[in-house]
C-alpha cells in the first residue's frame, strides 16, 4: 500500500486514542470477567462444602450469590460484544477511508494522464503519421514503378530475343547467319539443365561432358529445321 509517503500516518490520531480507550475498556471487562469466573467457582466450592457439613442454609446463600455473579457475567458479555463491535466498525471505517483515499489518488493520476493526452494532440499526431505513411507509400510506389519499368524493358528484350530465335529457326539452314547461330548456342545452356532426364538415357556421356548438351540440343533442332523444308 503506497500511501505511506503521501500520508503522515506515523502519528497517533484522535481516532487512535479513541480506539485505544475502547480497547482498554474491553481489557478491563475481560479481566473483570475472569474475576467473576473465579468467584463463581469459589461460591460453588463453598456451597458444596456447606452441603457436606449439612449446612443447607449457607449452601443456598452461596448458590444465590453465585447466581447473581453469573447474571453479571452475562451482562458483561453483552457489553463486551457491544464494545468490540464498535471498535471494529471504527477500524473498518478507517480502512474505508484509506480505500477512498486510494481511489481519489488514482482518479487524480488518471485525470492528469488524460490531460497530457489531449484530443488535439492525438489528432495532430495521427495526421502527422498519416502524412508520413502517405509519403512513405509514394516513395515505395515510385521505387516499385521504376523497378518494374526496367524489368519491363528486360522482359521486352527477352521476348524479342525469343521471337527472333523462333524466326531464325524457321529459316533454312543456309540462310542463318553462322555467327548468330554460334551465339544462340552459347546462350542456350539453361534449357537442358531444367529438364535432366538425360542421365537415364546416357549416364556416362551426360556426366562426362555436360557442356556438350546445349550443342547437341542445338544440332538436333538444326536437324529438325533441316528436315522441315524436305517435308514441305
Amino acid at each position, binding site marked *: 500500500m503506497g500511501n505511506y509517503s503521501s500520508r503522515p500516518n506515523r502519528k497517533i490520531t484522535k481516532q*487512535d*486514542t479513541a480506539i*485505544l*480507550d475502547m480497547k482498554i475498556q474491553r*481489557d478491563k471487562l475481560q479481566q473483570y470477567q475472569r474475576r467473576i469466573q473465579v468467584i463463581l467457582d469459589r461460591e460453588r466450592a463453598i456451597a458444596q462444602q456447606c452441603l457436606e457439613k449439612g449446612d443447607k442454609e449457607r449452601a443456598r446463600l452461596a448458590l444465590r450469590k453465585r447466581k447473581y455473579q453469573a447474571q453479571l457475567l452475562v451482562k458483561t458479555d453483552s457489553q463486551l460484544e457491544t464494545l468490540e463491535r464498535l471498535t471494529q466498525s471504527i477500524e473498518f471505517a478507517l480502512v474505508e477511508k484509506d480505500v477512498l483515499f486510494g481511489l481519489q489518488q488514482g482518479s487524480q493520476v488518471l485525470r492528469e494522464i488524460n490531460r497530457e493526452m489531449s484530443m488535439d494532440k492525438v489528432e495532430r499526431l495521427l495526421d502527422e503519421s498519416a502524412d508520413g505513411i502517405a509519403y512513405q507509400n509514394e516513395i515505395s510506389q515510385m521505387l516499385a514503378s521504376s523497378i518494374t519499368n526496367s524489368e519491363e524493358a528486360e522482359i521486352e528484350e527477352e521476348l524479342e530475343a525469343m521471337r527472333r530465335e523462333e524466326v531464325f529457326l524457321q529459316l533454312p539452314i543456309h540462310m542463318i547467319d553462322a555467327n548468330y547461330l554460334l551465339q544462340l548456342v552459347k546462350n542456350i545452356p539453361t534449357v537442358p539443365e531444367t529438364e535432366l532426364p538425360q542421365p537415364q538415357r546416357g549416364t556416362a556421356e551426360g556426366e562426362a561432358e555436360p557442356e556438350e548438351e546445349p550443342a547437341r540440343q542445338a544440332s538436333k533442332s538444326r536437324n529438325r529445321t533441316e528436315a522441315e523444308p524436305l517435308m514441305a
Partner: protein
Amino acid sequence: MSTLPSPTSTSSRSTSFPFPSIYSFPPFFTRQPNSQTWTSQLSLWNSLILAYCRYNRIWRIDLNTAIEWDLFNNRDINRSLKLETCKEVLDSMVKKGDAEWVSGSGSHVSKNTSAIIYWRRPEEWANIIADWIDSTGQKNTILTLYEIAEGDLSLSQDFRGIDPTILRKALDVLIRRGQAQIMKSADGEEAGVKFFGSQ
C-alpha cells in the same frame, strides 16, 4: 502484575523439566573455591536457569521464594544452593545480560532479590512481536499492552503472558526502529501501542 509461580506449582510442573546430568552432581550446589572451576560452574548455572525458565515460562525470579524451587534444590541428592551463591549466579547473569535486577516492589528492604530472566533478549522479543504483527495483519492497528500478553490473538504465541517490563523493553526496540509508538491512556498510563509498517 506478573504472578510469580508458587514453589508448589513450579515443582509440580517442573517434574517434566529434563534436568541435565550436572544437576545430580553434588559439588554443583557448592561454590567452588578454585576460580576457574567457579567460572565454569557459573556458566553452567547460567544456562540451567535460562533453560529452566524458558521451559516453565518464568519471566522473573524472586529469590525469596525461588530459593525453594527444585531448580535450586535437588532432593534426590539432598543438595541445595545457598542464597548467597544464588545471588552471585544471578549477578553474573546480569553482567552477561541474561538477567536484570529489578527494584523490589516497595516493602522489600534488601536490594537485588528479584530479577528478570532474559531467556530471550528484548531484541529477540521485538523481532518475534514484529513478525507476529506482520503475519496477523495488525500493522497500523492499536493494541493494548494487556492484549499482547493476554489477548485472544496471542494465545499460542511464545510471548504469551510476557512480563510487562520485558514487553516494554521489546517495544522500546521497535520504537527505536520506528516500527511502533507507545500510546497513553486517558489516565496517563502507558497502555497501548501502535504498530507501523517497516518503511
